[in-house]
């Protein structure tokens, strides 16, 4: 059995302007020690999916209205508040996007890393601090014993994200959710942080859910990739399949908007035209149809279901079943080849 099984997750926010369907029927599995990447534009429901898993959605404005989150045989969505607190940080831990604001400015870094240990493992201050120093050392902070006594503003961005990772891994969780952990960092630091995560994953056997809008980030480390658009899963499969044989036009669009050095592209990048949909007023039929160059009448009227096209590789597009409807035809990459 998979470590984490999410089925038909639906999370909605009830605002004055209407109901925001932030996550609309998302299902996936995560095995121990594997990495799942959730990819999509801003506002596609990636982060809300992650927050729903940990029951961190702010109620009463937001609520998980349907679905199941099965963590090692227990339904997270039905846990008591006490049980959920015992689970957070202990079995599922999370790293946030902006390391500059994720650490509390009034506490020493070592104290903050040790906080989870004091909460979950009942360690005293001294032992938690010693363990925090070990963790800082593990994530590659030089002179950890000294730096643990520093305040967050004395750390650089990259070091703070390392500290966040140390904090998340302090209790040795089964699952680490990383919500765009490298977005706020310099490119060189990004690579280091990702490398560190992979290395710690191999050492500790932690499963990772990596949330990102950057396909380049997940290419190396993800086992599975889930592409989200407008709160729905549009493509889900093994990383190699999604990268090399993408089925959904939206995934094609994402891949085409990446700069590449293997295609002799003198031309421009091929961004997806238009804006992501408002989650209050999702377009009828396939949410992607207003931006999709291949949209037909059926796309406007009927919501495509997520269908397994190849073993372990599904897509939510009416035409994915047609073997001729593949990325090679994409007009834009053809243009680029021609150039």
């Amino acid at each position, binding site marked *: 059995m998979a470590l984490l099984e999410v089925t038909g997750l639906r999370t909605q926010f009830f605002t004055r302007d209407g109901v925001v369907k932030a996550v609309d029927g998302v299902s996936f599995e995560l095995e121990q020690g594997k990495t799942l990447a959730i990819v999509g534009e801003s506002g596609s429901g990636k982060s809300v999916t992650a927050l729903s898993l*940990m029951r*961190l959605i702010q109620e*009463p404005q937001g609520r998980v209205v349907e679905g199941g989150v099965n963590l090692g045989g227990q339904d997270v969505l039905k846990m008591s508040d006490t049980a959920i*607190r*015992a*689970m*957070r*940080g*202990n079995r599922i*831990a*999370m790293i*946030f*996007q*902006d390391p500059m*604001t*994720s*650490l*509390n*400015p*009034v*506490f*020493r870094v070592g104290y903050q890393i040790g*906080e*989870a240990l004091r*909460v*979950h493992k009942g360690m005293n201050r001294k032992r938690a601090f010693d363990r925090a120093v070990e963790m800082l050392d*593990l*994530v*590659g*902070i*030089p*002179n950890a014993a*000294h*730096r643990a*006594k*520093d*305040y967050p503003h*004395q750390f*650089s961005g*990259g*070091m703070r994200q*390392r500290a*966040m990772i140390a*904090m*998340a891994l302090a209790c040795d969780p089964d699952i680490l959710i990383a919500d765009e952990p490298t977005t706020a960092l310099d490119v*060189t*630091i990004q*690579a*280091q942080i990702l*490398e*560190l995560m992979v*290395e710690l994953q191999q050492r500790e056997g932690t499963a990772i859910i990596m949330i990102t809008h950057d396909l380049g980030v997940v290419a190396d480390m993800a086992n599975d990739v889930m592409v989200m658009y407008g709160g729905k899963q549009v493509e889900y499969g093994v990383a190699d399949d999604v990268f090399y044989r993408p089925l959904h036009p939206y995934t094609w669009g994402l891949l085409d908007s990446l700069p590449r050095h293997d295609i002799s592209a003198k031309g421009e990048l091929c961004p997806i035209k238009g804006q992501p949909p408002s989650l209050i007023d999702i377009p009828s039929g396939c949410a992607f149809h207003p931006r999709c160059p291949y949209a037909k009448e059926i796309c406007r009227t009927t919501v495509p279901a997520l269908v397994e096209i190849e073993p372990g590789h599904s897509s939510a597009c009416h035409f994915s079943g047609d073997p001729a409807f593949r990325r090679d035809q994409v007009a834009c990459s053809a243009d680029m080849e021609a150039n």
Partner: protein
Amino acid sequence: MSKRRGSREQRAVSAGPLDVEGHPLDTQMPQPPMPPGAAELADRPSRTLWGDAWTRLKKNKLAIIGLAWVIVVVILTLSADLWVPRYFADPTSTEFGSLIKPTFPDHPFGTDRIGRDVFSRVVYGARVSLAVGILAVGISLVLGLILGALSGYYGGFIDTMVMRTADIFFAFPYMLFTIALLAVLGPSFQNVFIAIGILGWPSIARVFRSSILSVKENEYVDAARAMGASDWRIMVRHILPNAIAPITVYATMSVGGAILTEAALTFLGMGVQPPTPAWGAMLDDARSLILPAPWLTIFPGFAILTTVLAFVLMGDGLRDALDVKMKD
């Protein structure tokens, strides 16, 4: 010592060869690259919000004068039993030989209309003022912080209830409300600070609520929740210390305000009752003699003025010192 550690750290960082992407090629974990001088920077003693604030406060002359004056007043009035009765007079003892007389040096501030020593009464009067100021603000703080915290942290219905109640409190003229409350409770020392304290909470709750609203949006609060911290822990450990700075400023200034209100209430006869020496009561006592015996009003009036001013200056200095935007 610190220099030595700095250079060792730098050597360690530059020791390993780096590949094209900037990762060290040795088996160690990738180290964050340090700019030159970063190691020395890391060796500075840790600076805290309050440490920084103190450094800045020290540069503010007015605030330091305010602080010094408050300290002087506190020391004088607390040690009064040791020296005032012996060298001057007991604040309540009367000397019928010298009524309303500016008799320096026996009675440096003169005597009042029943022959009491004004200097002694001014010094002892500070006790009432300071005690009322601090106790009243203490009550306001307890009420205001709890209600403001509930309001800001939980929002929704609680927020509406607390804030609308605060609005109701604000809707009444402050002075009239205190007088009405004292009319119900009866005039006495403890009722004065209770009344002022009860009426002071709405401002504190408002300031604290807004402060919490901005602090709780910080990612470290989400991070704490994701780490499994309880509401209580998040509130006390993560939000409170970051939201308390504006309250310190407001509370310091409020002490001045409470002293002034106490003096006004006592002046009106609603506060501390005779024969307890209180600055407001002394003014009330002397108001018919303001021209023939100005020392009876000047000295207690001056005591109120300087003490209130000292607290306000201190609060003002604290505001500047705690404002991180003014960091140089």
